[in-house]
């Protein structure tokens, strides 16, 4: 394993220290427990958005903390969900009195830890809602699996809900918005190479010289199928069509019912994309993918969307939700209405995403 780190067990801590030094005008960093938070936190009267997850996906989530996006991000060890105490302390630090929204990618670990954190935060009299992101169409059903993973739509959701919160939306409205972005978003990814978890010291999987993993997650977990590599155009088409032709997706999620004062099972449905939809198109690099390849993919994605009657109204091309040094990419399409487009365009100033300020 060759990495520009010191000791594997210090990597996340030192990364956060580096970020604190690099972006003092945007963020501050807590090391015990580990989380990144807005330099001007708490913003009084604003719903506080908190996300988090394993490290190794940078810039997500710590790089999305700042004006117009997240209030805090909890950094777990590499590819390991952070712990409830981190999430609780982050909530205390950024609580502006208007409630806390935990944006949770749908992985067993993240879901459980954020649920524990929410329960603990409620004991401290905070109003908390957890919203799941589960947009990965590579995971087919939710009966035989832990449900679809949260991947690329997370970035879009954090941007758009961040803008909503900044604009003064209340907790219910921010939560609804987050649910809407997620319900409108679908993603799928592939890997050309494995990544190497620093503490593991060797690649999580081995791929032949002409093989790829199709339907990869963001933790170096193998995909749904291994296949021979194809041209960028063919691979883009596979990813894009998997997303575009994915039907309605229904599943039961655990949400907090503030009136009942208890967790309840809610059935949510993501409606399939259809001709005439306007979408935000996101071509994401997995960390080790050069820019040139992402543009080549975007080119083809544009063509496929056009052919399928989808209008790309906004786009994002770059490595925003990564798997360490993995080579590969993912595509995310999010159906966007006028409100979402306006919130997408709203100013944002974070280490990883910035415009308008």
């Amino acid at each position, binding site marked *: 394993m060759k990495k520009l780190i010191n000791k594997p067990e210090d990597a996340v801590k030192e990364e956060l220290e580096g970020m604190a030094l690099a972006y003092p005008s945007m963020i501050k960093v807590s090391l015990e427990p580990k989380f990144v938070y807005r330099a001007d936190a708490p913003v009084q009267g604003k719903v506080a958005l908190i996300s988090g997850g394993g490290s190794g996906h940078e810039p997500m989530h710590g790089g999305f903390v700042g004006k117009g996006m997240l209030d805090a991000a909890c950094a777990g060890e590499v590819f390991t969900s*952070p*712990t*409830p105490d981190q999430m609780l302390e982050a909530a205390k630090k950024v609580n502006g009195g208007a409630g806390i929204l935990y944006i949770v990618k749908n*992985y067993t670990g993240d879901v459980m830890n954020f649920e524990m954190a929410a329960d603990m935060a409620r004991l401290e009299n905070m109003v908390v809602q957890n919203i799941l992101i589960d947009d990965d169409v590579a995971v087919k059903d939710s009966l035989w699996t832990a449900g679809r993973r949260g991947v690329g739509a997370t970035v879009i959701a954090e941007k758009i809900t961040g803008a909503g919160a900044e604009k003064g939306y209340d907790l219910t409205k921010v939560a609804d918005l987050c649910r809407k972005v997620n319900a409108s978003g679908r993603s799928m990814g592939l890997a050309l190479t494995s990544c190497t978890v620093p503490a*593991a010291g060797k690649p999580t999987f081995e791929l032949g010289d002409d093989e790829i993993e199709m339907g990869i997650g963001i933790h170096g*977990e193998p995909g749904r199928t291994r296949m021979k590599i194809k041209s960028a155009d063919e691979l883009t088409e596979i990813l894009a069509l998997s997303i575009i032709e994915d039907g309605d997706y229904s599943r039961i999620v655990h949400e907090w019912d503030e009136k009942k004062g208890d967790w309840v099972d809610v059935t949510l449905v993501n409606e399939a994309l259809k001709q005439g939809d306007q979408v935000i198109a996101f071509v994401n690099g997995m960390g080790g993918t050069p820019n040139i390849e992402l543009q080549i993919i975007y080119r083809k994605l544009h063509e496929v969307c056009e052919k399928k009657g989808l209008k790309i109204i906004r786009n994002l091309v770059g490595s925003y939700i990564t798997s360490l040094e993995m080579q590969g990419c993912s595509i995310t399409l999010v159906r966007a209405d006028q409100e979402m487009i306006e919130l997408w365009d709203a100013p944002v100033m974070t280490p990883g995403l910035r415009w308008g300020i």
Partner: protein
Amino acid sequence: MEKELSISATVSDVVNCLRKMCDVIHANKEYLTELDSAIGDADHGTNMDRGFQAIAKKLSAPVDNDIGGILKMCGMTLVTTVGGASGPLYGTAFLQAGTALAGKQELEPGDLLVAGEAALKGVLMRGKAILGDKTMVDALTPAIAALEEALATGAKAAEALEKASIAAETGMTGTIPIQARKGRASYLGERSIGHQDPGATSSFLLIRTMAETAREIGF
């Protein structure tokens, strides 16, 4: 009372057992991560070791004379240091076991079952897995059943735990031929078949350690 005749386990027996668990997890760190590489994200060993090393550190300071309290302390430590799926699951297991044994300064064999059942209930409540989902539940469930059965027939703690350990091992290897339906391995669909679940493996290792300790102290 000589060790051979002991029918109860003391606080220091429990602490001893926990220390051994820490060592066993540490010794199996790479192995557990290896298993997690095949069908997960290559961190189960690192996660568990981080948590149990944190426990070991806490156990090197004097502890309260309350077995329930000690187990709860372990649970909180796991919850706050492990992360991932295994952190809340094992954390809840220890927290629930601790709650079930609150205030105890000695354990009777029957206490093992009380604690074990509480721990399993905690895991099921937290993770919502059922038997056959290819998770730690597949090792824990038969282990607790075997424990109950053995104790019901009047077995000594060590003997009952030995049965539990064997049942856990069978449950663990039983995860190999089946397809995962919970946790990260479920994303692999049929590709998860043929691999042993890492969490079931760590569960077996912990139960085996209990059985060994019980035998050593003649519990």
